[in-house]
């Protein structure tokens, strides 16, 4: 081996010099939400699918109706919300990881929870916006009536639901190997859940399957939004079962995300002929 003494340093810094304080995590989180919102809104395709598609489907499927039930409006609203919080969020997170963007952020002094929370909060906000636009279309074209109580309750359900779906998608990204697998994986999970839960229209299911669907995050979300919009006398605006299931999904998914989430791209290990250990 060729070896010489390391040359003297050209210059040296005081390693223990005093440094300014690290930025406040709360202000960093605010900055991350703005940054992620800017990115998400810049992606016009994602916005068109999440916000535009449910409204287009609602209007195209019900052109001859002037009145629609709360369940129909809630279904289309939940469809837009879940497309954003599940598919758009999940696929874009995998894409960012595979592009090395997550790894890049991990190397900065930004707390890791700040980055992830920023993404999940932004997705939740855009998901709720998507549902709100659909509900607004219901108010404008299909006779949906909104009271202050209905707005508040629907908002609680939508925020909880969007958060639960976004957290679940974040957890699932940990087991998706690459960008090519991301789209099919998320769609494969998404459509059975959405269809079985009656989001896109009621379906006839065996009792046991109806029971299963009531514990998945789509049916309780649709049910909670429907109850909020229907405001039928004697029924709660937010059914406790639906709220409990969504809260359980939100917390469980968050815990799973903490365990499963990966910052590093999936890369094949470079192979070199193995040598005997010295």
């Amino acid at each position, binding site marked *: 081996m060729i070896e010489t003494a390391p040359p003297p340093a050209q210059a040296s810094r005081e390693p223990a010099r005093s440094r300014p304080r690290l930025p406040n995590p709360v202000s960093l989180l605010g900055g991350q939400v703005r940054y992620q919102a*800017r990115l998400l809104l810049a992606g016009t395709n994602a916005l068109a699918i999440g916000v535009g598609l449910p409204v287009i489907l609602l209007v195209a499927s019900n052109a001859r109706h002037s009145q629609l039930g709360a369940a129909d409006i809630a279904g289309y609203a939940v469809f837009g919300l879940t497309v954003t919080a599940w598919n758009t969020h999940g696929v874009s997170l995998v894409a960012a990881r595979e592009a090395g*963007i997550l790894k890049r952020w991990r190397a900065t002094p930004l707390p890791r929870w700040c980055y992830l929370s920023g993404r999940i909060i932004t997705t939740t906000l855009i998901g709720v916006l998507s549902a709100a636009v659909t509900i607004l279309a219901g108010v404008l074209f299909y006779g949906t009536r909104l009271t202050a109580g209905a707005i508040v309750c629907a908002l609680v359900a939508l925020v909880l639901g969007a958060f639960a779906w976004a957290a679940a998608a974040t957890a699932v990204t940990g087991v998706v190997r690459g960008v090519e697998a991301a789209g099919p994986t998320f769609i494969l999970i998404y459509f059975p859940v959405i269809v079985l839960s009656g989001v896109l229209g009621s379906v006839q299911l065996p009792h046991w399957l109806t029971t299963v669907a009531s514990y998945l995050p789509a049916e309780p979300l649709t049910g909670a939004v429907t109850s909020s919009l229907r405001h039928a006398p004697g029924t709660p605006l937010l059914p406790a079962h639906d709220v409990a299931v969504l809260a359980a999904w939100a917390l469980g998914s968050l815990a799973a995300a903490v365990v499963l989430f990966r910052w590093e791209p999936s890369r094949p*290990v470079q*192979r*070199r002929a*193995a040598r005997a250990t010295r």
Partner: protein
Amino acid sequence: MSAVVTENLTKRYGDLIAVDNLSFEVPAGQLLAVLGPNGAGKTTTLEMLEGFTAPTSGTIRVLGADPRRGGRAWRARVGLVLQSTSLDKGLTVAELLSVFGRAYPAPRPVADVLDIVDLADEAQTKVGVLSGGQRRRVDLAIGIIGSPDILFLDEPTTGLDPEARRHAWLAVKNLTSSGTTVVLTTHYIDEADYLADRVVVISAGQIIADTTPPELRAAAGVSTLSYPLTDEAIAAGLPPALSPYLDADGRSLVVRTADLSPVLAELVRWAEALHLGLAGLEVGPPSLEEAYLAITGDLTRTGDAPS
């Protein structure tokens, strides 16, 4: 004070030993270039120094801390450029730098960073429409936005055109002159020659040379001679002792050998006998590339150095 200290650093992936017992130090303010062929273990070593990869055994201290346990304050002092470009493409260059800068306690002003990487004219351009070379310089800009004490650069100029490489080199030179420690992996020998205070050559996960660029040249143990042949010299024909050194197009002598004396003496005798001038004759130490190839064995394998 050393910015980096590693002792017996080893990384295994199953049966594969990617990094094998590396021990080295990098003094603060030094620019260390890590050279080596593909798969030599350069990036694995760098990823261990950056804290992305845990060593199988051995110890690492970067700025006095274990990179795997380095908290926010430690990460605020470390900058890096990954091997491939990793940028959100929907923002402008200035927006992206501003977003990253907010994470640091003492970020450089965005305008200053843009000047350093020579991207001031592209400040309002979206990252997605930049050329590959410009994106690489955005990577470098993000690496230095936090005023790091140490900067890890993993093949930062791979894929850049010569002009873009020169821009990147100048940016790195600016940093080292202000005292930043830099650890650089590269395939470009001229890059190491231009930038590095010190060169470590890794092959098969082990250090095979740890020296300065001039000493690496000298330690390669070969000198070079080149002599362009005139038409008159070609017509006269080379003596048998010089014929093995005729290059592929038959128009010049190229000699790389540990002892030039016999070849040089033979050349002078032959030239005097034919009354040939020796215009264009060059004798000197090897380039850093030749030295690198000599110590990694590639020079011998390609047959450039007759024994």
